[in-house]
């Protein structure tokens, strides 16, 4: 099976809060010197794609939109074991919203043509609306499964595992299909090997523009609909903390139980 992962790159989400800044004009996070990384759900999707590649003796491709800054993340995906990386870039794509991004990715998937499974992260690590995956399924008119943790081939179809409150649901569909991926214990992303990283740097990464994809850039996004950021800010979190003291750990434990009982919390 050929699996294509639509990867999104984000500013490292591990940036500590005191270094996190918002540009109120641009209404987004200040990039500063923070590294760009593969979004955490994209990384999990790559892991699921690699597992599916191994189970079916298949192939995995990673597809991303972005400028040269994204090459490092594509190298990392290749070093993890992805067979092929493709980068989509065009000045006209820069401000594409979820509708536009889904449209562009759909054009790229039409160009790739021979895919069986398309994977997207369940949401990106920045604005996290979680729209591109379902929008893309609609654009491509593919069966769509969301919040999937694991995919197994099953008699020409696939069976997908979705974590739910009481355990798991198993969903079944026939490829081609699209799934959005969430994390669980079965898909903790593997590390990229040093050897893989060296080989990845030599890999050729095709770059596709709007022309290559046959996209009319004047028609990007939907003129009828918009999703706009109106205001963004870092919330004030000031909590008065009560520190429970005591001579020993045991004393602190007793004082804590007393406190929780007094407050009626237990």
């Amino acid at each position: 099976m050929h699996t294509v992962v639509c990867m999104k790159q984000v500013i490292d989400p591990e940036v500590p809060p005191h270094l996190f800044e918002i540009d109120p004009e641009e209404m987004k996070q200040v990039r500063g010197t923070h590294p760009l990384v593969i979004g955490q759900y994209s990384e999990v999707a790559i892991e699921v794609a690699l597992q599916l590649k191994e189970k079916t003796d298949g192939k995995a491709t990673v597809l991303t939109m972005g400028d040269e800054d994204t090459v490092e993340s594509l190298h990392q995906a290749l070093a993890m074991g992805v067979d092929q990386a493709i980068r989509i870039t065009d000045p006209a794509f820069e401000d594409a919203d979820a509708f536009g991004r889904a449209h562009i990715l759909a054009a790229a998937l039409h160009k790739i043509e021979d895919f069986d499974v398309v994977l997207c992260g369940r949401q990106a690590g920045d604005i996290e609306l979680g729209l591109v995956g379902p929008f893309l399924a609609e654009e491509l008119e593919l069966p769509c499964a969301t919040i999937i943790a694991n995919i197994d081939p099953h008699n020409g179809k696939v069976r997908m595992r979705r974590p739910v409150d009481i355990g798991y649901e198993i969903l079944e569909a026939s490829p081609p299909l699209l799934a959005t991926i969430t994390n669980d214990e079965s898909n903790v992303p593997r590390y990229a090997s040093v050897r893989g990283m060296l080989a990845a740097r030599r890999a050729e990464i095709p770059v596709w523009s709007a022309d290559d994809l046959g996209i009319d850039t004047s028609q990007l996004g939907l003129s009828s609909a918009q999703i706009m950021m109106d205001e963004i800010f870092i919330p004030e979190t000031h909590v008065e903390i009560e520190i429970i003291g005591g001579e020993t750990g045991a004393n602190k434990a007793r004082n804590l139980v007393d406190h929780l009982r007094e407050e009626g919390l237990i």
Partner: protein
Amino acid sequence: MSILTLCTASSEEIPPVSLEALAAARNLSDQLGGGDVQTLLVGSGVADHASALIHRGADSVFVVDDPKLEDHQAELILGTVEQAVDQLSPDVVVFPHDHLSGGHVAPRLARRLKTGIVTDCTGLEVRDGNIRWLRPVYGGKAVAYMIATGPVQMATMRALAFEPLEPDASREGVVETLDINLDALSAQVPVVDQIVEEDEFAGRSIDRADIIVSGGRGMGDEEGFENVKKLAEALDAAIGGSRPAADSGWVPHSHLVGQTGKIVAPQLYIAIGISGAPQHMSGAGSSKTIVAINKDEDAPIFKAAHVGVVEEWENIIPTLIEELKKE
């Protein structure tokens, strides 16, 4: 102005998240200075819930009750809602953000309707005639007001963001059956099996729990994490974990609290050996009282906690359990 909400119910119950979305719609109607709140009630054997939805804030309830909708297959719910929106032409659509409607049906519907949508909202306000939907962004490090434009304004509301309205038996409203053509719809991705978790974690689910005891990297190893489970048992509480605990396999991912796991809001959240990274706090931050037990007094968790104990957990948990058993 009309606001449509969605309630996918079973014959036994109305899910709380549907009542919360209904409360959000009522709140929006109040802020707009009036607006008809409609609820689309979907499922099999659900028609009897209509009056309860009116008591909880709906002005009218449109019922689609069909055995084909028994197991809430996404494709059928999507087709049903699409036809309902076509018939009812609402101005605003507010869905609960559960994994079926918020995470799946709502975005696909927005694409079909070619209209804007803001997902997973925790609040809303009307300013200068615009509906501004509030939601956390960047893993909870920031919050944003967003606006969706288009033929229908769509939003999905995070669980627990609004409290369901108290039932008012004197409220009156209209109940109508909606004629939906389900024959053209088929489940493209059917649920073929369910695997129910049957282990020590069963019955200690963090969903809507009153008390959660959570452990993190500081528990050291699987054996250390046993102490979290023992304390949870003593408190008859749910068991949670941070990302390191879940990725290490100490706790199933269904018990993971945080941006990549579940958003919880219990009365009492006890965090042990958890540093309090933003990714975790975006899941636990709405808890009414947060108690942090951590040996590192500089851990960020102490900036978010209401009650703190600076101590190694090894010196605390045995006495805690002993004291709790004393009653």
